[in-house]
């Protein structure tokens, strides 16, 4: 299974309601740019919410470039970020020491993803 563009958009949109998450991102000054390949989907998750496609791509703290399959495995907990990077399944651009700050962020995204996927099924 892969994280298709619609699913990713729905997941990130659902996160707009997660005030705690956006507060965390704002407090830490974190913005995450996801560039999913095949087909390319671009989404920015930040303390200001979620935006798709139309925004300056060079302002994000961390930029993730990955396939839909890798994104699916990351969001479902089948794969960790370090192992994905070591296996060259994704590229992270930005200060990589800040990846540690995602320890409690990615599980929230994963939970939203699981909920959206359940509804879609």
């Amino acid at each position, binding site marked *: 299974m892969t994280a298709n563009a619609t699913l990713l958009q729905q997941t990130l949109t659902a996160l707009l309601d997660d005030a705690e998450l956006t507060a965390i991102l704002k407090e830490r000054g974190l913005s995450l740019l996801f560039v999913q390949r095949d087909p390319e989907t671009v989404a920015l998750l930040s303390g200001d919410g979620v935006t798709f496609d139309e925004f300056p791509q060079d302002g994000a703290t961390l930029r993730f470039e990955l396939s839909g399959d890798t994104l699916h495995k990351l969001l479902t907990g089948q794969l960790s*970020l370090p*192992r994905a990077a*070591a296996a060259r399944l994704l*590229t992270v*651009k930005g200060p*990589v020491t800040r*990846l*540690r700050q995602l320890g409690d962020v990615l599980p929230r995204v994963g939970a939203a993803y699981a909920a959206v996927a359940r509804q879609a099924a």
Partner: protein
Amino acid sequence: MTTAFELKNPATLSDLGALSAAAMPSFFQLPPDVEQLRDEAREFAETVVKPRRLANDLAPHDEFDWEIVRKGHELGLLRLTIPKELGGRGVGTLGVAVVLEELAAVCASTALIFGASLLGQTSVLTSGDPHLQARFLPQFLGDEPVLACNAITEEVAGCDLLIPDNSPVAQEVMTARRDGDEYVLNGIKRFITNGKVAEWATVFANLEGHPGADGLTAFIVPLDTPGVTRGPVADKMGYRACLGTTLLFEDVRVPVENIAFGEGGGWGFLTMQSNQARSTVAAISVGVARGAFEIAHRYAGERVQGGLPLYQHQFTARKLAEMTAKIDAARLLYLQAAYQADNMLPAPTYGPAVAKLFADRIAIEVAEESMSILGARGYCRDYDVEKFVRESFGARIYEGTPEVLALAVTNALYGHRA
């Protein structure tokens, strides 16, 4: 005529601080916290390491100076890369590289003691594994200094383990056999820096039945585990204060949770780790070159021949100018590579390989020229240059020989796995 006295401490572009003070344009301005760390490391090197370096160099090959490590630990050098929220200093590859240059400009052996320990920690740090981090990182935060090490090299498989195309045919590689919830390690590691004194090691072994890069796995092994024997210390021509040791593993049982990056994840991790290591070893080579240069620079300002200080003789002036250019160029390469390692995951292999290839070579060239400028004095122990000459050859071997680095560079150029 300019006197030698006035030239004792002129600004040199070999000093990043001088570069800033001279308002020279630079593509690379160090972050303030790294600048501060550099100054602390420089003071540590001058006040703690320098007074002990000759004695440590002359000591028996298997003696270890824990006092230097203890003082460095007080400064936080053993927890440089541990995140601040966990009690470390929270710097990345750039900070480590800058610190190691400062230490190597006084004593490359000391730089390698700290560098090898930090390298050993990278498996635990970058794995993101909370179990491994809770078990193996707090040791570096206590009052007593603790060292780690990284065990790759084997008796007949050194470079082969670093070349994907060679690794399937590497001879007698350490194996890991699964037995229930444990792995059983058997094999021999050679020339492991800190192996004699480290608390634990990141050990690379091939899963039984899976030779080559795809089976390579990184295990975190406490070195007091039954079956581990610390063997003889290599009697080296340089880097004598850090101990390169044989480690024997005979039916060593390691729990499966001590694997970093999963089964078969060792190769991918090794390439990431190599990018960091090559950047920082390039910095050590720059430090060695700088240490030798600073002695020659001072001497050429004081030594008068034919009524002129040496530096005013054109041939020596040319040598000094070439040496500074080489050091500055090598520094920019390692800073760039370290910056990439801190800002890209996985970082490209090209930058660190080129940085190390170049820095290792110029370290030898600069050290040799420095010895030449000092003449007979350069050949004597009292002037320290001969130590830098011996140490300049060391970094050309560990963390990738020029031949291995050349393969990494050309593989990157031609799009092969490197």
